[in-house]
């Protein structure tokens, strides 16, 4: 899988950001309060928290869809709402995948839907076609099988991936996704997970809002926990999993795979607790089995 590098990957910095909806009315309640956060190029940052904790609002600030009441959003050191910054340029570099992006599918064929963005960039037909192809391959859909089909006749997992391909066809350097695996089956979740991993491995930045703790444990290099509009944790996944109180405040239980590890350790079948996926557990069990067989031979 290849991703074009037109620009250097971008850095996002949020300084003292506060925001409330309906701020001029009595009923306006604070959604985000004094948030400080910086996302460095190449990170895969997960944002978690209960419904209503401000995750989506934060994401919409990062992409300039909302303007903070106070505080600033800086991209590569520049305030995105200052006069000399073009938001349309920014959005080309920072692709936002909304919740249920498949509701935005509109064209008669998958090709036309994905091609819409690149065509508006003024690319010629062959460039557009190659962007569409590359985007489809990235989300693990075989182009010849899909380009002529109606996006409305695909399964929900396929629709979701076509919609994401539409954003990818713009060659963003950073992708911000709001609940990309919601309501998908395990095949769909796996496909999204593989694609995010590859996209991130190519050096791009990913900001991921998700309730799927297993997905986060497998992918994220860093986790940010929001609670009632405030940032209450910012660090690596492993440390978070060791702080069950924070995890619970964020509304999460330990990933099931981690509980399986703890149980294996209690049974004496494993001797490492810091594993977070079924694949890692299998690897560890294999290591133990090999050590044991070596010892018995020795």
């Amino acid at each position, binding site marked *: 899988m290849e991703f074009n590098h037109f620009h250097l990957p971008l850095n996002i910095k949020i300084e003292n950001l506060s925001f409330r909806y309906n701020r001029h009315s009595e009923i306006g309640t604070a959604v985000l309060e004094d948030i400080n956060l910086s996302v460095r190029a190449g990170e895969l940052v997960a944002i978690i928290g209960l*419904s209503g904790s401000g995750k989506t609002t934060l994401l919409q600030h990062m992409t300039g869809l909302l303007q903070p009441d106070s505080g600033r959003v800086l991209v590569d050191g520049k305030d995105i709402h200052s006069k000399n910054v073009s938001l349309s340029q920014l959005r080309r570099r920072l692709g936002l995948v909304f919740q249920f992006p498949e509701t935005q599918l509109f064209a008669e064929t998958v090709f036309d839907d994905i091609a819409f963005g690149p065509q508006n960039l003024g690319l010629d037909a062959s460039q557009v076609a190659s962007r569409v192809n590359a985007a489809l391959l990235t989300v693990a859909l075989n182009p010849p099988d899909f380009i002529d089909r109606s996006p409305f006749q695909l399964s*929900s997992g396929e629709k979701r991936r076509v919609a994401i391909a539409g954003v990818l066809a713009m060659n963003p350097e950073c992708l911000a996704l709001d609940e990309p695996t919601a309501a998908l089956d395990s095949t769909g979740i796996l496909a999204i997970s593989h694609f995010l991993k590859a996209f991130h491995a190519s050096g791009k930045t990913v900001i991921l809002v998700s*309730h799927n703790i297993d997905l986060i444990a497998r992918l994220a290099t860093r986790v940010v926990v929001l609670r009632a509009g405030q940032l209450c944790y910012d660090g690596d996944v492993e440390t978070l999993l060791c702080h069950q109180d924070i995890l619970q405040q964020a509304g999460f239980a330990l990933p099931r795979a981690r509980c399986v590890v703890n149980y294996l350790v209690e049974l004496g*079948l494993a001797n490492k607790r810091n594993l977070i996926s079924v694949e890692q557990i299998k690897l560890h069990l294999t290591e133990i089995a090999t050590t044991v067989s070596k010892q018995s031979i020795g």
Partner: protein
Amino acid sequence: MLQISNLHFSYEQADSAQSTLNGIDLSIKAGESVALIGPNGAGKTTFARCLNGLLLPTQGDVHINGESTKDRTQIIGIRQQVGIVFQNPENQIVSATVEREIAFGLENLGIERNRMHAIVDNMLDKFNLTQYRQHAPHLLSGGEMQRLALAAVMAMSPQIVVFDEPTSLLDPANQQLVLSLIADLHRQPVKDDHAPISTILITQNPEEALHCKRLLVLNQGQILFDDKPDVVFRKTDELKNVGLQVPAEYEIADYLKKCGQEKSTFDPTDFQRYYAESLK
């Protein structure tokens, strides 16, 4: 209670080769707690819609307490007996306030006013919505809205409640809440003139299926497995072949077995007891 025989359903014309449901035979007894899993596109939602006559079989029959969904004179009775809570409650909530939403179905059944008020109050209380009774439903949170949708369905005193992926849009805390609401339905004292309620939980999350007593696996419009969840999830490879994951403990147990450790002390059901303890 629920009898399905040779159920076929096709969204296209009847002669189309592509049908969504392909010959389902099934019966569900009063009081059963059933989970239904299957990959996207397997026909889960179509199946749900066939249960209360929203969709009619292109072939075969669905009987609720002996009445066919094809019998249009029985449709009101069938819809009262089979309630559906959809994935996105916003799609099924129609009223301007929470209490009117709960009353909506009762009004349509022509329930006498005082009795209706009593039922509405009872439902508001039971689903912890009393403080919101005058609120507009669209201002509720996702979890609250899902509670309201269930309250409106339960007001009709259905015998079967079908949950179509009720947790897939909720955060983990609200997912737990919905699962405990479903469990509560089975704990209710049964009234003399009522059979115990049956629930069908359609889900993408195999771990949720472990909360049910019986698990159906739907693939390409057919029932692939119908057994206790613990029995079904031990068929790890067969489930993976149709694109379904099993809970982590089954995958590890399967792996240990494949590594030649048949006599491993690790067993999924033991783990589940340990897991339940750890949550306390």
